[in-house]
Each structure stands twice: as C-alpha cells, then as structure tokens.
C-alpha cells in the first residue's frame, strides 16, 4: 500500500516537475505547472466518474480497467462484493433447505402471531385446512377454522392435548390440532391427520362390543341348562360339585361380559355425560343396605354423609362406578375389618371415598390399577371372582363427568379410593337440610 501511494505521490510530483520544466523552456513556469496540475485533476475526475458509473451499473458492466489507487479501490470493492454474495447465497441456501424441509413435513405447520393471525404455513397445512396463499397471511386462524370446539380450544389455556375436529374442506377426515406456544405470544399450530387412528380405534371398540354381545347368547343357554341340572334330583350326587363349579364360572363369565359391554358403551358415547340430577345420599344409603345384606362381608360397613349435595350426571354410570369401588372394598377386607363410605362437598366440588382396612396395594401397582384386566395378585383376585374391568369402568365413568380417581394405599393397612367431581357437576338440593349423618 505504501509503495502504491508513494508511486502516486511521485507521479504527481513528476507531472508538476514536467510542467515546470516546460515553463523553464518556454517561459511562465508557474502557469505551466498549474496547467499540468489541472490536467492531472481532470484525469483523476475521469477515473472517479468511471468508478462511480461502474458502481451504479455494476450488474451490467465489467469493472473499469484503470491502474493505480483507483484500480486498487475497484479491486477491493469487487472482492468485498464477492464475499458478501457468497455469504448471501449460503444463507439463502440454508433458508431454502429449511423451508423445503418444513414444507415436506407430513404434518401441517402454521405459525400464528399473538392475535392468532396466520404468519406462515406449509403446504400440508394449506392442504388439510384449505388455506390459500398469499390471501390468508395476516388473517385470524379462527376466522377460517370456525369449528366451535377449535375456537374454544384456541381461546382456552390447556394446550397439553390436541383437539380433534372435522376439517372444513374434506369433511370425511379427522384432524388433530395442537397449539405449541413459543417466544413472546407466538405459537405453532400443528395439524395431523388422525383419520386412520380413529378408524382403527373405532374398529377395536366395535369388535369388543360385538364379540361380547355374541358371547352372551350361548352363555345364556349354557347357564340355563346348568340351572336345570342343578335342580335335577335324578343325577348322581357325584356330579353336584362339578355342576356347582360350572354354574359359578358361568356366572363369572356373565359378569365379565356385562362389564365389557358397559365399558364399550362408556367408550363409544362421545363427550360429556348427560346432566340429570342424582340424589347421591339416597343412592349411597341403598348401596349400604345391599352391602349389609351380603352373606360374606366385613363386620362393619359404615356410611358418613357429610353433605346432602347430589350430582348432575348419568345415574347408572355413577352408580356403577360407586358400586364397583364399594364391592372392591368389601372383597379385599376380611371379616373383622371395616369398610367406610364417605360423601362430602366443598368449594372444589363433591367427593366420594371408600376407605377399607383391607390388604392394601403395593405402591408400584397403583398407577396401573385402572388398566383393563390388570391384576395385583393374579391368584388371589381370581379366587374372588371379578372381571378385572371394575376400575377401568370407574375411570371412564368419572372422566365422562369431568372427575378423576385418586388411590391411596398402605400395604397391610388398607386403601382409600376417592372420586373427585368438579364443582360444575354439584347439585345442591335446597329442599333438604344440610346435616352430617353417620350411619352404621
């Protein structure tokens, strides 16, 4: 660089000296030097003009071929430009790859702003939801996807699970939409086609329901004949034992099928349970009487009614859930033990608990209790009969009422099964005075 500038200075000095030399030859050396300086200035201006023109029309013309300082500046600009171009191209390439990969995603992706306005969407999202580009950018998503369930989901706060809707364009599909909030108020809406899963699920449910239904008829015939055989006095006494066993097993099968049907009915009815008023205290008193009438039962079956509140729900579902819990308590408590039912309500809602002093459940089994056919101790529970579906029924019935099941247990000391119902399901019957009753 220094050499270049020294050369430039030397050249200027040379030109001025040349001008002065001509002046010494022809007279007026100062004027000659000034003329040389003007010439030099003109040449520089011409170079400046060429560089400026090139910078303006860079894309259409080659860099000017000039030497010296100007040439060096042109070279530097070219280099700088080339480097910038390279970076830009790399960025564009990365961006394109990113766009292409999100566009190729099998799921729909839609980016929403704070006001739920559509910022960007990929091809699959447009295809599934019938969005149009570029018309729909900036529109609110709930203006286009108007399904009431989705609007409710969008304005709610629970985004842990997706909401399943029928899309507006292809109504035979089922779409699962899930909102994933990120950054400040922005969110990602994921759209997945779940038609196939739902159809498989439906087929499974139908199969269970149909199979149980078909099993029922032959079983009725078998138990009918077994009943007749049991009363037939002409049969050899040696057959009395086997016939009794067969009858007991037939009854058990009947119970399992009844539970399977109940469970598939609970599963196949969509949405929330109906809201019929149920007088829970009366129901519990009746359940207690039935329990006391059993031949094999713990010594004490108690009922604590701390509330006169009832529930809004489907009566037979609630009764089947409560009965299942009570029967479990009775089954796993020995003759000297106690089973206590408790019904109370507070500002959170209504609660029903069955507290037994039975054998208890090891802690590792508690999370899996509500699975179908899950057995803590296979040998023992089979000898007690029971279908292995009771707690699954309880779970489903509670879910349909917006409630949930809580299980506490100490091995060897007893268990507490508590049903919690939300406040919206509480029915306060003002006609009945609120008084705690403890019925032994």
């Amino acid at each position, binding site marked *: 660089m220094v050499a270049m500038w020294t050369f430039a200075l030397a050249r200027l000095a040379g030109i001025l000296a040349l001008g002065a030399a001509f002046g010494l030859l022809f007279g007026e050396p100062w004027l000659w030097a000034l003329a040389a300086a003007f010439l030099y200035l003109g040449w520089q201006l011409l170079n400046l003009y060429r560089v400026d023109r090139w910078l303006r029309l860079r894309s259409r013309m080659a860099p000017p071929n000039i030497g010296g300082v100007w040439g060096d500046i042109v070279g530097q600009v070219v280099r700088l430009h080339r480097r910038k171009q390279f970076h830009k191209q790399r960025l564009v390439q990365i961006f394109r790859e990113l766009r292409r990969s999100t566009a190729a995603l099998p799921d729909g992706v839609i980016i929403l702003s704070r006001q739920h306005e559509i910022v960007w969407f990929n091809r699959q999202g447009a295809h599934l939801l*019938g969005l*149009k580009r570029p*018309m*729909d950018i900036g*529109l*609110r998503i*709930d*203006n*286009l996807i*108007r*399904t*009431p369930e989705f*609007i409710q989901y969008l304005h709610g706060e629970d985004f842990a699970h997706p909401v399943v809707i*029928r899309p*507006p364009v292809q*109504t035979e599909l089922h779409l699962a939409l899930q909102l994933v909030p990120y950054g400040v108020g922005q969110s990602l809406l994921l759209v997945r086609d779940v038609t196939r899963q739902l159809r498989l699920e439906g087929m499974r449910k139908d199969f269970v329901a149909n199979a149980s239904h078909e099993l029922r008829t032959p079983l009725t015939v078998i138990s009918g004949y077994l009943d007749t055989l049991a009363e037939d006095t002409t049969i050899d006494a040696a057959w009395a034992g086997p016939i009794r066993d067969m009858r007991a097993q037939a009854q058990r099968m009947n119970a399992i099928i009844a539970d399977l049907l109940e469970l598939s009915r609970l599963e196949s009815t969509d949405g929330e349970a109906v809201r019929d008023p149920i007088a829970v205290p009366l129901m519990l008193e009746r359940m207690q009487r039935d329990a006391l009438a059993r031949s094999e039962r713990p010594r004490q079956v108690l009922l604590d009614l701390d509330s006169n509140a009832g529930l809004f729900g489907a009566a037979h579902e609630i009764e089947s859930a409560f009965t299942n819990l009570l029967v479990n308590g009775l089954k796993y408590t020995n003759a000297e033990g106690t089973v206590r039912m408790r019904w109370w309500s507070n500002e959170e809602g209504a609660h029903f608990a069955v507290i037994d002093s039975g054998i208890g459940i090891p802690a590792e089994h508690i999370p899996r209790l509500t699975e179908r056919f899950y057995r803590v101790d296979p040998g023992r529970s089979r000898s007690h009969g029971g279908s292995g579906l009771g707690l699954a029924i309880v779970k489903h019935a509670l879910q349909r009422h917006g409630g949930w099941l809580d299980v506490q247990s100490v091995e060897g000391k007893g268990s507490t099964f508590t049903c919690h119902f939300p406040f919206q399901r509480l029915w306060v019957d003002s006609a009945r005075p609120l008084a705690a009753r403890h019925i032994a």
Partner: protein
Amino acid sequence: METADLSHHISRRFNEDLEKVRNQVLQMGGFVEQQLHKAITALVEGDSRLGESVATDDYKVNGMEVSIDEECSRILAIRAPAAGDLRVIVAIIKTITDLERIGDEGEKIGYIASRLATMERPADKYREVKHLGRQVAQMVHDALDAFARMDSLAALKTAQEDKMVDEEYEAIQRQCMTFMMEDPRTIRRALEIMWIVRALERIGDHAKNICEYVIYMVHGKDIRHTSLEDVAKQIDAAHALARR
C-alpha cells in the same frame, strides 16, 4: 380493497370494536355450519338424538344474533362510521339475520330428521338429500370464507352455485312425486323429505345473500336483484381499476 384495510384508523378502539364484531359473526357462522352438518348427519345416519340436540341448540344461534345486533347498534350510535366502515356494519347486520335463518332451517331439518329416524329408511339411504346437503353446507362454508377473506370473486363464484342447488332441489322434488304416485304408503316420508330439501334450498338462498353482502361490503355495490353476469363484469372492472 379499501375495506379490507381496517387497521388505519384514527381511533384504535374503533378498529378493535369492528374486528371484534367481525370475529363474532364468523364464530356464529362456525356454529351454524356445525349445526347444519349435524342435522344432515342425523338424517343420513338416522340418529334421532343428534337431530334433537340440533333442534334444542338453536337458541344459542338466536342469542348470538341478538348480542351481535346490539354491538352493531352500539358502534353505529357511538362511532357514527362512514364509507367502508359503515358498509361493514350494514353487511354484518344483514349477514347475521341470514345466519339466524340458516340456523332456523337447520333446526327444522334436525327436528324432522329425529322424527324420520323412527320410520323405515329408504333403500338409497337419502343419497340425493345427502348430496344436496353437502353442496349447501359447502356453499355456506364458502360464503363465510369469502366474508373472512373479503374476497368478492369467491363470493360471486359461490353465489353462482345457487343455481345448481335450485336444479337439484327440483330434481328431488320430481323424484318424491314419482315415489308418491308409485306407492301411496311412502307419501308421509316423501312429504317430510320435501320439507327437508325445501329447507336446504332456502339455506342455499341465504348463503347466496351472504355472498351478495360480501360484494357490497368490498365494492360498495348493491347487487341484489341484478343478474350475476352483470355483477361479474362490474367486479372485473373494479379489479382492473384497482390494478391500474
């Protein structure tokens, strides 16, 4: 499309009010669409409970209409909107009336469907009615989409579909008459079906009305009682003007 640009306003509150009431209309539209879908499903699948639920839920549509109507009166009284904003409000007031009527027709279909569910079902399982229902539901959907997007071209296209719905309606009507003549025992069912297709045809008309309000809202042209071909020419001219 000056009306689509609701964001440049002196008063931000006014914008928010307009946006809010527009959202409410579309929300109401979404509910009405769902009611219509449910009513058609109830008929085709013979689900009497679903049909009844449609009939009992209609009060919600009425409630929405009243509240949007009040909101519009409030905006008119307080903000005294002019030009494009005034057209938006006027179009909204008219649109919700038609939506409410669509809700009423849906209620009717749901009610008749629940009654038909107890009767013997025809061999074709109401295929023609289902097809007409699909077509009409799509029309309502497209009309509301055009409303959301302020898309006058889509609105015009949807309005033109009403002709097809009318033709289909007449075809089913003739078919029903043939059934009744062939076998007088089907008269009762055929009459009920007539009520349903009549309701669907009316829904098509209401959807067409909504499309006309969209065109009015966007271009400020009242196109009721003019032929759609003329309207198409006018809209093309307006777009050409906007492009220049």
